[in-house]
């Protein structure tokens, strides 16, 4: 049979979440001894597919064949028994920080033996852990507490733990995203060592496409919940071919925007840096009626920058000017007073008060307007504002008294925007405003942005979705590793060029 060379095959895998088809008829085969790159834009279904393998997404439909035999994976334990190990990006959730490296590596063994024997032979545990590390040539002190390790060392610890447990398929979910250049190289060296003396296969999810050429033998491209291409990694393989497949055609290409007159410089940021080194010397300006984009991968520093510009974090260096006047911002309160508005990335945590009603949220940033001299809230005025914003933004809610938690993601986001409309902001800082928003609401948010631009507001639009940058912005910067490394007139660039710089090309 032809199938024999595959250790694992997934056929016609579909996965439905409430309201969304996350995967539709995906085929994915894993050959023994190969390193697969799994690439795709955000939301393409990479992680969803891997969570099917790891037993987390247990409501999939379709067939999974392990060594040619049909099986079903319905729990993480089943997945582990098959020898499938996954290392998630959030390594901290998989390790116990207060235990040593040795204890973490041997944790499952310790737990399994607990039933038979309640005494633990620590010397043996440490010795075996050290052997496991030595086997794959990882140099970490087994007695160190996990909490004192670097992120890269934590990943290595997790990989060692996985390998020791007779792993056949190792899934690495964007392991390099938080790593530095040298740490990434160390990780790749480890992957190469694993492949040299082992019969396992590795699935490697990444957004940094050049990395494919360093360690992968095959690449699988996903888009919109299906796989759209599969290549052998050879010298002939071109990055652009993968990028084209990743992007495909999307709704953004059908969105036609209106252009407005752009005026004088309104908002300026000069040499802005933060305390943690995540934002370094950012300088840019926004003119009246202009939508300026900042594009960059997750972790490039966009969110940190948005918080800095809004006074929500402390600046190490730099200044912010509005209409030529320098703004002193110690707290977000000062930013709001100066007519700045922030649509934060984490909507439910930072944008809305979910347990409060719609009207409450819509007046949160400008309550003073609806108060009398004694600071009593005039509910009639406040309600009028709520009605006005609900109408202007087409917020779908049963009444102004409905709690925000019962609105859909898109409508919650409109409430966040409405809060700033009510405050009559001059500058809107938007951090991934369409995250978790359906296509209809997305279009409405785009239209709103352009209406605001038409009214002469300044808009900063931050996103990792390049198609959005192209649809929404007039001018765009590319952020990489905390710096703005490139500036384009949006009409004079394209997705491939932006992606090229966003992933660190130069």
């Amino acid at each position, binding site marked *: 049979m032809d199938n024999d060379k595959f250790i694992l095959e997934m056929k016609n895998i579909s996965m439905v979440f409430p309201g969304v088809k996350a995967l539709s008829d995906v085929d994915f085969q894993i050959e023994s001894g190969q390193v697969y790159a799994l690439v795709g834009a955000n939301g393409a279904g990479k992680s969803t597919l891997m969570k099917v393998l790891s037993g987390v997404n247990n409501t999939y439909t379709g067939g999974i064949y392990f060594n040619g035999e049909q099986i079903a994976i319905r729990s993480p334990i089943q997945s582990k028994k098959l020898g499938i190990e996954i290392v998630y990006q959030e390594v901290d959730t998989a390790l116990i920080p207060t235990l040593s490296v040795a204890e973490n590596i041997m944790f499952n063994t310790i737990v399994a033996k607990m039933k038979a024997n309640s005494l633990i032979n620590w010397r043996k545990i440490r010795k075996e852990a050290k052997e496991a590390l030595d086997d794959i040539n990882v140099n970490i002190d087994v007695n160190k507490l996990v909490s004192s390790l670097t992120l890269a060392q934590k990943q290595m610890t997790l990989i060692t733990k996985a390998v020791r447990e007779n792993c056949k398929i190792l899934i690495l979910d964007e392991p390099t995203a938080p790593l530095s250049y040298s740490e990434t190289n160390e990780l790749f060296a480890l992957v190469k060592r694993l492949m040299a003396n082992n019969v396992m296969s590795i699935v490697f999810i990444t957004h940094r496409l050049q990395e494919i050429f360093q360690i992968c033998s095959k690449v699988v491209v996903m888009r919109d919940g299906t796989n759209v291409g599969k290549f052998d990694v050879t010298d002939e393989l071109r990055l652009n071919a993968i990028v084209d497949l990743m992007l495909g055609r999307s709704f953004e290409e059908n969105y036609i925007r209106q252009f407005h007159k752009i005026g004088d410089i309104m908002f300026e940021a000069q040499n802005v840096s933060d305390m943690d080194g995540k934002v370094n010397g950012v300088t840019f300006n926004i003119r009246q009626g202009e939508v300026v984009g900042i594009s960059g991968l997750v972790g490039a520093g966009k969110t940190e920058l948005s918080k800095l510009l809004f006074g*929500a974090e402390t600046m190490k260096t730099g200044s912010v000017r509005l209409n030529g006047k320098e703004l002193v911002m110690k707290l977000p309160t000062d930013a709001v007073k100066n007519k700045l508005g922030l649509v934060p990335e984490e909507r439910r*945590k930072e*944008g809305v*008060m979910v*347990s409060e009603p719609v009207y*409450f949220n819509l007046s*949160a*940033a400008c*309550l003073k307007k609806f108060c009398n001299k004694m600071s009593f*809230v005039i509910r009639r005025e406040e309600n009028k504002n709520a009605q006005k914003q609900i109408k202007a933004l087409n917020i779908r809610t049963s009444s102004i008294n409905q709690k925000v938690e019962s609105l859909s993601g898109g409508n919650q986001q409109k409430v966040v925007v409405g809060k700033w409309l009510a405050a009559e902001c001059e500058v809107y800082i938007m951090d991934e405003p369409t995250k978790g928003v359906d296509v209809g609401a997305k279009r409405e948010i785009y239209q709103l942005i352009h209406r605001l631009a038409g009214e002469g507001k300044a808009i900063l639009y931050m996103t990792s979705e390049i198609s959005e940058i192209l649809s929404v912005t007039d001018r765009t910067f590319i952020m990489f590793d905390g710096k703005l490394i490139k500036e384009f007139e949006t009409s004079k660039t394209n997705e491939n060029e932006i992606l090229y710089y966003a992933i660190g090309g130069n």
Partner: protein
Amino acid sequence: MPISLLSKLNLKMFLTKWGSIFATIVLFLIFTVLMPKTFLTESNMVTILRSISVTTVIAIGLTMTLAVGGFDLSSGQTATMAGSLIISMMLWFNMSFWLSSLVSIIIIVLLNLIAALMIIKFNVPDLLTTLGMMFFYDGLAMTYAGGGSISISYPTPWGIPTTLPSWPQVFKDIGKSPYIIIIMLLCVLIVHILLTYTRFGRFIYATGGNKEAARLSGVPVNRYRLYSCIIATIFIALGGFLVVSRNSSAQIQGANGYGMPAISAVFIGRSVAGINKPNAIGTLIGAVLVGILENGLIMYGLPYYSINMVKGMVLMIALAVAYASTKG
């Protein structure tokens, strides 16, 4: 069956919203039936109102603390300290009632700013900070009083005889009905207006609802956390004054026992009418519930030393209801 499911849901919602009022009425009726001659009498009603007054005034302070998202385990001990302070100001230093109150409130607010500093600046969880404050106040109040109670004709801890012939009339009055009941109702009214109708209250609730979202909407959250701490402390101190007025002396740990029932009152009142956040009217209802339960059970023959057992259970039930209705 969808219909029975619906009615089940409605029943659950009804109980969450109106359960505490319902329970209060049921308890009232039960005690009235069990003890027709003693329970439902004018004097006993006044006794109940008077006994819940202290709990309510302290609980009103805690309502502010909990509304802004905080917590306070030390309110009983804070009230004890405040009581010792006002008594000593009048007795040892011959200050007037009003000056004594003012000085005591200033001192107790300054002391509670230690807790505010720990919580707001050093990010120590409220629960742990106030656990520490609880012990601190306990020792401080006792040390201050020289290890015993403070009362008329007792000498100062440094051995000087006191000359105050009797407590000022205002001081004696605040612990008696109807004044104590009027004071309680005024406290409820003030905080109700503050939390429900003013910008101040709105920002307190916004901060309590989602601190980060409030901060990013321009609410100076730390300033409001500080304000709420100060206001709460003033109410708690007032509660302490009422206790020493009723006892005509500052007893060791005299107000410590009011802390837990006050917390219960706030949690019982949280869900009243589906408001689902700490609120003044709810707190009053919570205090009434706890008060009727305590009064009725003791009249019915429950030994006074067993009452904490019942109060503890009531607090647990209130907590279960409050948290069961929140998700995750």
